[in-house]
């Protein structure tokens, strides 16, 4: 069966929507753009498209080989399409969650979170090392069950195109659809570094998986999202954006003192360190919870600092 390749087809739409959002940003004073940040994000997107195009044959080849030993031949019945849509979206949820929880996959995915802005250009800030990190293997179970590889890749493309539009601050909520679908509000939470928002809302198209597996967090108007990562980048250089985390991994592994340390530097949570001195999402959440009960700086401690500012 001939399925269209959704992402290249959507590029004119992506660019048009970006232009509209930029004009609305100026007209309505909602959302935010920074020129160098946008240039970096779009360069990452361009690189991702080129590398993706160069490696798609290898992915398809792997899927086709796996398909030859599949349990079933699911074919192209209408119900297979429906099932494949849900199964692909569940695979995306698992892949996305693990991309935040294991450093090997985070090293690739961190690129997408490395902007401190949240707009449609952020959606296109994509990794160059997706193939190298073997992220595509998360969809292999679908092929081994018997879903046709071209159908799986088609729905994956549909999911990626869908995920473009929730990257905006222009749209607040989408009413009752928020119960079922990933939305701008849900995805703002996902990109936020506010402690209570960390490690949440991994949805691709459907938010139901987060609700089902306990990773759903609602956006709180009292706690506006601050976007980025723990320890934000101070570079707009695409090479640094693409490889900073990989560089740190190599450095850590070279300095490791045991096999366990090597394993944890590769497959532990992002930020793991032998002495626990680095920030992980868990340590940030713990510190935040403590700070609510025992604030780090009492008012009287802040006073001298404030006085210095006035001098």
């Amino acid at each position, binding site marked *: 069966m001939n399925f269209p390749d959704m992402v290249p087809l959507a590029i004119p739409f992506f660019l048009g929507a970006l*232009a509209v959002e930029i004009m609305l940003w100026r007209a309505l004073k909602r959302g*935010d753009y920074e020129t160098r940040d946008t240039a970096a994000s779009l360069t990452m997107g361009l690189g991702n498209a080129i590398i993706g195009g160069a490696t798609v044959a290898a992915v398809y080849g792997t899927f086709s080989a796996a398909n030859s030993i599949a349990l079933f031949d699911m074919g192209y019945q209408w119900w297979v399409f429906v099932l494949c849509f849900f199964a692909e979206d569940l695979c995306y949820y698992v892949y996305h969650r693990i991309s935040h929880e294991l450093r090997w996959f985070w090293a690739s995915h961190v690129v997408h979170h490395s902007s401190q802005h949240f707009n449609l250009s952020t959606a296109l800030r994509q990794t160059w090392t997706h193939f190298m990190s073997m992220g595509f293997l998360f969809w292999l179970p679908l092929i081994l069950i018997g879903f046709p590889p071209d159908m799986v890749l088609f729905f994956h493309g549909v999911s990626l195109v869908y995920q473009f539009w929730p990257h905006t601050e222009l749209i607040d909520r989408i009413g009752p659809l928020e119960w079922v679908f990933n939305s701008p509000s849900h995805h703002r939470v996902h990109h936020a570094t506010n402690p209570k928002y960390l490690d949440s809302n991994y949805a691709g198209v459907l938010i139901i998986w987060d609700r089902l597996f306990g990773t759903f967090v609602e956006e709180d108007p009292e706690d506006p999202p601050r976007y980025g990562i723990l320890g*934000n*980048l101070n570079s707009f250089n695409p090479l640094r954006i693409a490889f900073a985390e990989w560089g740190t991994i190599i450095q850590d592994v070279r300095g490791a003192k045991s096999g366990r340390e090597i394993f944890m530097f590769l497959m532990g949570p992002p930020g793991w360190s032998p002495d626990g001195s680095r920030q992980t999402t868990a340590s*940030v959440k713990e510190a935040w919870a403590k700070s609510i009960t025992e604030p780090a700086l009492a008012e009287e401690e*802040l006073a*001298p600092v404030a006085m210095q500012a006035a001098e």
Partner: protein
Amino acid sequence: MIIAPFGVVAIVSLTWFFGGLKRPAKLDPEGATRRLLQDFPLLRIADWTITGEGDAALTRDDQGRVAAIARFGDRLITRLWSKGEISNVESVDNTLVVSTHDYKAPDMHFAFDDAEQQSAWRKTFISMIGRPA
């Protein structure tokens, strides 16, 4: 695909045209404290050294770590360095160039008005040079 590179140039130009090249407000101690505590909620800090006329700021916590905050693009970045996380410190005129083992922020620049402050911070950073934990 062929329109993508032209599209990128057009979109970047559009953000520039609408004023996308921005800087955040200059740092002051109160703002720096507020921002730092968002990232490191349990930090206990004493006072700040504002450098580069508000481009960056430095402070120490009660455990001898150094916290830094710096303007980047139209946002801020924060760092909390323990002993061993600094790889090199260089004085270039009135500026300290601090190199770290952190690939996400390899070099940070701190310009001082006061030579004594610069010297004191240089000593502090030298004492933190080493390998990361």
